[in-house]
């Protein structure tokens, strides 16, 4: 039985890792877009309005119960509905009960934990620095990697760590759409729940304690690194 818990551990880390990667790719441009607010002018009215809608949408998963997200995801994943249907015809299987379905659910659920710290970091950037880089011949992509990423290192690290840790702890969504498959969707939080339901408190203690310890250590390190940063450089 310990073996299956190890598999769950591996699944959990894999889920958190893949989800974080997805968030880096999709969440970074989103965070950048939200952080750039142009001054009032007719041209930027539409863009700003769109941002005013998207921003609270991104924040929704923080306040919504995961069961709500899970509920809608279950419906969306169903082959009777469009998203599920598209996936089914493309891959031959359902999104529900699959690792990829969990990735989709986790990415949505951990989105604000990635986007928000990064967005804050981006907005604190001095615009003139980026303009200076442009005048030196750096294209937008060049400016992003050569200047913005190094200057926003702290924001990136916080965003990555938070979304990783948050996904490790995820339960409600996986419960709703995972199906408890040992090699694919039984992550640690589900395994823990199983142990409790089966009244196997000994194993439950081990997993719960492990999760608690992991979360604490992650946050502790995050704060410690952040403190060192404050005393070191004065970049954002």
């Amino acid at each position, binding site marked *: 039985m310990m073996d299956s818990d190890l598999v769950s551990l591996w699944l959990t880390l894999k889920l958190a890792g893949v989800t974080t990667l997805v968030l880096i790719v999709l969440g970074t441009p989103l965070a950048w877009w939200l952080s750039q607010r142009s001054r009032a002018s007719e*041209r930027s009215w539409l863009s700003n309005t769109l941002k005013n809608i998207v921003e609270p949408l991104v924040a929704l998963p923080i306040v919504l119960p995961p069961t709500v997200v899970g509920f809608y995801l279950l419906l969306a994943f169903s082959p009777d509905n469009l998203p599920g249907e598209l996936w089914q015809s493309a891959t031959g299987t359902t999104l529900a009960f699959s690792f990829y379905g969990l990735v989709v659910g986790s990415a949505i659920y951990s989105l604000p934990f990635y986007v928000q710290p990064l967005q804050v970091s981006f907005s604190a950037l*001095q615009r*003139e*620095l980026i*303009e*200076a*880089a*442009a*005048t*030196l*011949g*750096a*294209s*937008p992509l*060049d*400016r992003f990697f*050569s*200047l913005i990423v*190094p*200057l926003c290192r702290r924001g990136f690290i916080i965003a990555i760590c938070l979304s990783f840790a948050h996904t490790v702890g995820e339960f409600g969504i996986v419960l709703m759409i995972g199906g408890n498959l040992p090699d694919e969707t039984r992550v640690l939080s589900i395994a823990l729940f199983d142990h409790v339901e089966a009244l196997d408190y000994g194993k439950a203690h081990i997993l719960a304690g492990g999760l608690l310890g992991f979360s604490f250590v992650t946050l502790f390190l995050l704060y410690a690194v952040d403190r060192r940063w404050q005393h070191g*450089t*004065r*970049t954002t």
Partner: protein
Amino acid sequence: MSLSIQARVEREGGFELDVNVTFPDRQVSALFGASGSGKSTILRLLAGLDHIPGIRVSFGDTVWQDTKTFVPPNQRHIGYVFQHLNLFPHLSVSGNLDYAEARRQSGGGLSRQDLLDILNLSNLLEKLPGQLSGGEQQRVAIARALLSNPDLIVMDEPLGSLDQAAKNRILPYLQRLHRSLEIPIIYVSHVVDEILYLADTVFEISAGKITGENSVIDFSVSGTHINQPEAAAIVSCRVRSENEQHSLTELQFEDTQLLVSAGQLINGESVRVKIPARDVSLSRKRNESSIINVIATTIEHIHDPGTGASAVVKLKCGNQFLLALITRKSLQELHFEIGEPIFAQIKGVALMTQHDS
């Protein structure tokens, strides 16, 4: 290649930009005006940092912006020196220069070593921007802008955040650069002194409109700024000979001569000379006096502001002009008249050591 911009921009709140100006090639063009007059806006539009539709910007034959086109700033090859420091804080001086060098436009231009020498940066290379003084930071910023081998340079009040001592140290560097470069420089400032020191052509701007275009010499003796205490005349002279016995150099100024402290000057060289108004006094007679520069002029114009202690008198000498700052009391007591011949006694003559354009 000359740079031109045509822009008519109306904004809510009444600010309007209405300009149609061409900046000449190979010169330092100054854009002179008070804060809020639109100087920085024009620069940002020229560089493409702000994108307002409906304006037209072109450089030589290349159109940078019109109704159909917009060339982004990273493709315009402009060296831009901002007023506030834009050195990348996470890179050393050397790193900042590397950044520019890696994206440098090919084909000539000052080399890294050239710039290190001209701007005297060799001993600063390993430092971080936060460890540099204001003046040092600006020198690095200038070097970095030049290291990208731009086709033109734009400086937006580059000395604005420096104290007077730092400014005085940097101005010679800027002059040296002007001599080493063959590209146009557009220099924005509201400080007359800097303009007199560096510019060849001066564009005056007020409330979004260009109100005047003059050579710097004409600018120095006209306009509202001449009532400021730093008012000075810029005159063009030619080096005649050295008086080694007294460590003086003789300059040919119109029909007469000016004596200045000996500098490293070449015979026959054209130089620009700055004569502060406060160092010029007027006399109806040529006296025996310790002042060695006494010039015969005629009074061209008298500006009496009506209040305060001082007035400015504009004097004509040949084809050029001088300014004299005198007390209103003297003005009233001596009854100067326009057209009257008068001697200008000049106490201080500053050589600006520039070639005439």
